[in-house]
C-alpha cells in the first residue's frame, strides 16, 4: 500500500508541467470486483474509489473527504479494509476488491451485518452506511465475537454525521450473535 499511496500523491499533486507532460493518456486496467472480472479504461491518476463509482457503476462506496479521514469509501482489497480514495485503481490490479454491493448473497439476501443494520436502524441518511457495513464486516472476518470496545476501535476510522453510532454498535453485536443489552454504552 505504501507504494500506492506515494504514487497516488505524486500523480495527484503533480503541477501543471507534470500534468501536461505525463498525461492524461488513458490506460486499460483489469480489476476483479465482487468476484467479477472487469476491464475499464481510466486515467492513470484515477483512484480506486473514482473508478468503482464512475466506471463500474458501483456507487455504494462514497466520497466524503477524499483523504482517508472518514471511512465512507471503505472497500475490502484482498480481504483487508482499505480507504478506496487513497488507492490508485492501477494498484488494485490483481487484487480481489469487495464493495458493499458485493456483500449481498447470490440469492439477493443481505449479509448478516447488513441485516443487523436494518433491524437495529443503524443508519439515518445512509451516506456513511456502506463504509460502516464494510468496516464491520472486516472486523467480524478476523474477530467473530468482538467486545463493545473492540467494535468502537474497529470503527474509529468511520464518521457518521447523523449520529447512528449507538445502533451501529448494537447491529455489530447482533451480527456477531451476541446479546444486545448494552444499548451501545
Amino acid at each position, binding site marked *: 500500500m505504501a507504494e500506492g499511496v506515494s504514487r497516488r500523491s505524486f500523480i*495527484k*499533486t*503533480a*503541477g*501543471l508541467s507534470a*500534468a501536461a507532460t505525463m*498525461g*492524461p493518456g488513458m490506460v486499460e486496467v483489469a480489476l476483479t470486483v465482487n468476484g467479477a472480472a472487469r476491464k475499464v479504461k*481510466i*486515467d492513470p*491518476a*484515477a483512484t480506486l474509489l*473514482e473508478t468503482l463509482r*464512475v466506471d463500474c*457503476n458501483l*456507487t*455504494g462506496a*462514497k466520497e*466524503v*473527504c*477524499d*483523504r482517508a*479521514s472518514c471511512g*465512507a469509501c471503505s472497500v475490502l482489497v484482498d480481504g483487508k479494509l482499505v480507504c478506496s480514495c487513497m488507492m490508485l485503481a492501477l494498484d488494485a490490479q490483481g487484487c480481489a476488491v469487495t464493495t*458493499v*454491493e458485493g456483500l449481498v448473497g447470490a440469492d439477493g439476501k*443481505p449479509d448478516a451485518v*447488513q441485516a443487523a*443494520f*436494518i*433491524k*437495529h*436502524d443503524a*443508519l*439515518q*441518511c*445512509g*451516506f456513511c*452506511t*456502506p463504509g460502516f*457495513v464494510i468496516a464491520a464486516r472486516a472486523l467480524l472476518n478476523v474477530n467473530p465475537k468482538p467486545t463493545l470496545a473492540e467494535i*468502537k*476501535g474497529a470503527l*474509529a476510522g*468511520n*464518521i457518521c*454525521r*447523523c*449520529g*447512528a*453510532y*449507538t*445502533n451501529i*454498535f448494537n447491529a455489530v453485536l447482533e451480527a456477531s450473535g451476541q446479546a*444486545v*443489552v*448494552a*444499548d*451501545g*454504552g
Partner: protein
Amino acid sequence: MATTTPTMNRPMNLGASAADHLDRVDALAKVTGAAKYGRDRYLPGSLFAALIRCPWGSAELLSDNAAEVGKLAGVVEIKISRREGTYHGRDVGYVLADSVVALKRAMNALKLEWKRREVKTRIEDTVKEPPAINEDAKKVLDAAAKKLSAVYSTPVQTHSSLETHGCVVDHRGDSATVYASTQGTFAFRDGLDEALKLKGSDFEIVCEYVGGGFGSKLGGPGKEGLNAARISAARGKPVYLFVNREEEHLDTGNRPSSMTFAELAFENDGTITGGQILTFGGVGVARGGGGCDVPSGRYNFGDLRRAHTDVSFNAGGPRAMRAPGKPQGAFAEELMLDEVALACNVDPLELRMRLARSGNHKEMMKAGAKLIGWANRIPTGTQTGTIRRGMGVGLCSWGLFPARAEGEVVIYRDGSVEARTGTQDIGTGQRTIMGVVAAEAVGINPDEVRCSIGSSKLPVGPGSGGSVTAPNTAPPMRAAALDAKNKLLTIIAKELNVEASALEIVKGEVLRGGQRVMSFKDACQRITGDSITGRSDAAKVDTSGKGHSDGVQFVELSVDTETGVIHLHNVVALQSCGRVLARKTAESQIIGGVIQGLSYALFEQRVLDRVTGAMVNANLESYKILGPKDMPHITPVLWSKGQTKVCSLGEPPVIPTAGAVACAVLNAIGAPVRSLPITPAKVLAALAGVGGKKNEDGGAR
C-alpha cells in the same frame, strides 16, 4: 421488511408508537449500496464542474493562468467572473472538464495570484469591551442578594453533511431532470426555472436519497444548482457539480458563533430576580441570522433586560442549522443556572424544578433523574481524585409550525398501495412514517405500502426544516388514505348492496359488522380500471400548527484532571413529540440529536487564521466530529403519554446536550468552562483557576 423479533433493549419505548417493530423501509437500499444519492448519478456524456474559490478572508485577484490551464486535455472551460473575495471560499468562477480526474488536475494546475487585505474574523474584533449595564438592570442587580457576571461563548459549527452540496443537471432542450441533494425538493424547483430557461412543470427535481441535511440544504438550488443549471442549459449536456469537503466547510452555511454577556441577580435560595443578558451572533459576511436563544422561556428569569446584535466579519455566513439559535443559548442558560445553584449551595436539579415553567418538563426531570441515578451525584467541589465524575441536566422545547403539504394514496387492482408525497427523506424516516400513516388509515400493514417521495412531480410537501415534515404531511396523508379507502369500500358496498359506512378494513380484511366479507386483495380486484386515487384535498386537514415537543437530557461524564480529557459515560434523553409513528426511526432521531450535541460540546469548531482569514481546519481530521470511540451509552426515552397529534421531533434533541455537558463538567471539577468546545486545555485552565480569586458573593466570576 418488518422483523418479527423486537429490539428488546429499549423496553421502556415498546408500546409508545404506532409501529414499534417496523424497520426503516429504505434501510435495505441503504445498507446494500443500492440507494442512489444525487452524487451517485453519473450520466453518460457528463461534464464535471468545480467552483474556483477565494483562498483568503479578503483578497483581490491580481493574475491567473486560466488560459494555460484551459489548454490541458479534458478541460472544457474556465471562467473567472469575479476578481475579489471577502471570505475564504467565496466563489469567483468555475472550471468545467470532461472527467473527474481532468477536473482535479485542472484545479491543481490553476495558479491564482491574490493580494490579501486586512480581515476581521471574530465577534471580539468588533465587540472589544463588555457592554454597559442598562440603568434598570443596574437597579435590580444593586438590590440583589447575590450576582453572577459571566461571558459565555460558542464557536462556529459547520453542518458537515457527508454528502456535500450539489446536483446533477440533465438538460435536454425542452425538458430537464435535476438530481439534487436537497432538503427542499420544491424550493429547489422554484429557484431553478430561470437558470434552466424552462417552466417548473417542464423539469423534475429528483431527490430520492439525501446524504445528510441539517438545515443548509433548505434554501433552494444555491450557487451549486444555479451554476450547474446554467452550464447544462448552455451546453445541452449533463453537468455534475458537487463541492468537495473543504468547500462544504467554507461556503455552505454554518451554526453561527455566539457571545452571551450575563449579569444576573438572584436571591440566596437561587430565585433569579433579573438583570441583563446581551447576546452577539457571529454571522460572517451575512447581515443577520445569528440569533442566540437565551433566556429560552423555559425558566423563570425574573425582570431581565435583553438585546441581541449580529456581528459581521470575513467568513462564510450562517444557514439555519438544526434548531437554529437554540443550542448556543441553551449552553449559556443551563451553565448559568448551575453557577447560580453552586453559589447558593442548592442542587441544580432542585433549582430547575423551582424555576421551570412547564409541568411536562418537571415530570420528565423526575423520571430522568431516576434513570441517570441523580441521587448518586457528588456535590460540586468535593472531589479531590484525579478522575472526577460529573452530572448535568438540560431542557429543550420546540413548537409546531404549519407548512403546506398534500398527499395521495393510490390503491391498485393488484392489491398494492402507494403513498405519494414530493417531500424528501433526509434520514428522519419520512418515507417510513408516510407508509405507517397510510397503512393505518387504509387498514393494512405498514410494510404493504410503497412510498414514493422526493420528486417535484409528486404532491407538494414542505422542506425538511423546523421539524415540520412529519406533523404537516401526516394529516394530509391520512386524509388521502381515508379517501382512497372510502372509494374502495363504495365499490364493495354497491356489490353487496349495503352502505359503504357499514364496511371497514381491519388488518387486510374487509369486515361488515365485525364479520369477514373478503380480503383486501380481493376487494382491490373489483377496482375497474387500474387504480383508485385518494387525495388529501378531499378532507379538511388540521393546519392549526398547535402542538409542542419537550425534552430533558441528563449527561454523566468523568474528567481526567491531569490531562483535562473528558470521558462521556451516559446520556438519558427524554423527548416528547406528540404521537410517535415508528419507534425505531424516532429513537434514531433522538440519538442523532444527542450525538450532534455532544460533538458540539466537546470537539467542533471552525478555526480561522486571524491574520489571513483562512479556515485552517476545513477537513474532517482537524475539524473533529464525535466518532465511535467517543461514544457514551445513550438511552432515548419516547415520552408519548397517549397523545394523538403528531408533533416535531428532529430539532429539539440537539438543543440541551451541550449545556448539560457543561454543567456536568462544572459538577466534576468545581469550575465552569464557559466556552465551547470544552477542550482539555480549557478544562486545565479552569482547574488552575480553582481556589483563585472569587468575587465577594461567592460566584465564580
